[in-house]
């Protein structure tokens, strides 16, 4: 069968099965299990209504538990066992082995750099773009163009930026814009930007900043518009200049939103894999945790250390997780 046909067939079956479950289970509940007629009609309706939320929730809960909750526990277990010894419990041996690898510490160092640089730059650029575009007529067009990279895959973005960083031998015309400018301004030989240790990390980070700035801009722009006019008018009357208004009146009022944007990008950064995988694959000292983990899992086939590094990522995410849950609880009260 042609793959396209196969695809269509599976779509129909998959979605059909989902709908059939909901419709069928509700029908079963109302007609067969607790029919709303006969001697026990009233009690049956109450019972049906007790069960129904769980009927609605069941597929979602099942998938959530199986695909997100269970793996957290299982990964923790795997990180404490050794696959080669038939899954024997080895305590923290995997973690010890991981800590002895320089590549791991390189990944940690780079991840910390990413964690500082990417959210900071994305938020700063996003705030700048939001503030500037809010004041001009064609601001919406400008916004949607800055926002556009959000739709581009990390892999696509990697190709786009690899072209920017491309280097040709000295003396020939450069086709990567960065080297073209570099040669033109400095007269030096073109550089293989992605192979220059340490600084190449920043060239990779630029890609993510480029993608995430639009996100920050959209959220912050909405927050800026939500600022009460009176506070700004009062500042103008008091003779504040535009910069004072921005930094002393507007920014403090949207601090909460800035924090949300910051943490959201932080989570993206912790999981960043595609960009490093596609552009350098962790060579030239650009390793990050997610790619280190992928390496361990699927190249070295070392599930113990792979799981241990996944747990490190989980550990780094945990503060944000707790903070989010705490906020959500506070809101529901």
């Amino acid at each position, binding site marked *: 069968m042609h793959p396209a046909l196969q695809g269509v067939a599976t779509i129909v079956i998959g979605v059909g099965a989902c709908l059939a479950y909901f419709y069928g289970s509700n029908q079963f509940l109302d007609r067969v299990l607790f029919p709303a007629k006969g001697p026990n009609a009233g009690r049956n309706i109450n019972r049906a209504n007790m069960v129904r939320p769980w009927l*609605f929730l069941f597929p979602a809960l099942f998938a959530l538990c199986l695909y997100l909750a269970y*793996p957290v526990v299982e990964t923790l277990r795997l990180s404490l066992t050794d696959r080669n010894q038939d899954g024997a419990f080895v305590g923290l041996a995997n973690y010890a082995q991981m800590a002895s690898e320089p590549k791991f510490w390189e990944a940690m160092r780079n991840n910390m750099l990413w964690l500082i640089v990417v959210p900071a730059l994305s938020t700063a650029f996003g705030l700048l*773009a939001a503030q500037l*575009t809010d004041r001009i007529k064609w601001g919406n067009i400008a916004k949607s163009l800055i926002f*556009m990279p959000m739709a581009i895959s990390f892999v696509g973005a990697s190709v786009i930026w690899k072209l920017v960083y491309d280097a040709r031998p000295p003396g020939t015309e450069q*086709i990567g814009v960065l080297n073209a400018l570099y040669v033109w301004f400095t007269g030096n030989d073109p550089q293989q930007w992605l192979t220059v240790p340490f600084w190449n990390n920043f060239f990779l980070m630029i890609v993510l900043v*480029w993608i995430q700035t639009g996100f920050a801009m959209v959220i912050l722009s909405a927050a800026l518009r939500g600022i009460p006019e009176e506070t700004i008018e009062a500042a103008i009357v008091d003779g504040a200049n535009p910069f004072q208004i921005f930094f002393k009146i507007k920014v403090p009022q949207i601090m909460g*939103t800035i924090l949300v944007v910051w943490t959201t990008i932080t989570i993206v950064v912790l999981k960043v894999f595609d960009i490093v995988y596609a552009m350098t694959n962790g060579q030239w000292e650009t390793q990050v945790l997610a790619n280190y983990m992928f390496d361990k899992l699927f190249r070295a086939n070392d599930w113990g250390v792979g799981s241990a590094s996944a747990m490190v990522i989980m550990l780094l995410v945990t503060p944000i997780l707790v903070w989010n849950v705490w906020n*959500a609880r506070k809101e529901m009260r």
Partner: protein
Amino acid sequence: MDNIAGHKSSLTWAVHISVVVLVALWLFPTVGLLVSSFRTADQIATSGWWSSLSQQERQNPAIRLEGAEVLDGGLYVIEGALFPGLEAEVSAWGTSSRAPEAYAPGETAELTKGRTVTVDAAGNFRMTAETSQEGARLPRVFTTATTPPEFTLENYRQVLGGGSGTDDMSRAFISTLTVTVPATIIPIVVAAFAAYALAWMDFPGRALLVAFVVGLLVVPLQLALIPLLKLHLGIGIGKGYLGVWLAHTGFGLPLAIYLLRNYMVGLPRDIIENARVDGATEFQIFTKIILPLSFPALASFAIFQFLWTWNDLLVAKVFLIDSTGRTTVMTNQIVELLGTRGGNWEILATAAFVSISVPLVVFFAMQRYLVRGLLAGSVK
């Protein structure tokens, strides 16, 4: 607001200029890829894409002469054009790579075995020889010429089915689509029911479940890779479409439930209570009232999930692509191209652009919903 007397004009100009610069910076890399995808390999390799729009003088790669032989006054003559159909202006030319600019237009080069070559300014050549050149390798000509901008669709033909091996993205395109559509629709269906239960049904433990979903929102999917791959292999799903749909469904659910629940909670209570009083079942309320009213939230999540599954590499690599590679998705194929054909920018740029064009269309068509979803999903 900030138009205090005297400040306005200069500041407004500064704002306009800064925005222009910012937009240009953000757009420049993508435009580069788009322009490159319409250029030939030679053009990409010899000049920056930014110079492709203007007339440019550059040294062209060698062109081997070819054409029909005519016997003219005892000499075998081959005539033709170096740049058929193009308005080129040759400023210098040569017959060896060591001296590619040895001759001016109109001059005649004397080659070995009694052959001569003449190239004029318009790019026409005339080659003469004392013996027949039938079956012989004709000389190559190097030119430095000004040629008008030239674009080609050949790369797209290669990538969309004409190319061989990994150049051909059509199969990967179909696979990506096959992964994406069910992986977008199934979580919506599953999450909508759950979100309704969490928003409008009363049962013990509801608040706890909402907190549970919020917590799962940030769990890195890296943790799920090994346990789930083991599970899939263990229960016989193996690597394939079914596995990748299930995985995407699982990973997309927290956001879906969260977004939809937040939206549904905001729907007017009266409508739902009235329907209940009128004897509508919960299933009817859900399908006839809640679903149509929640369309904006459904659309925002659909766009998120679509972009995420279309652009995904990691989940597809782990749960879908087996050793035969028959179900490879576009992102994976592009990464492979980066490895094997890293220098072939014409194929790479075109493949990447084919892959990002669909999300871009969705993005520009449905940006409103995407923005609304972002705002609902993160500002809390």
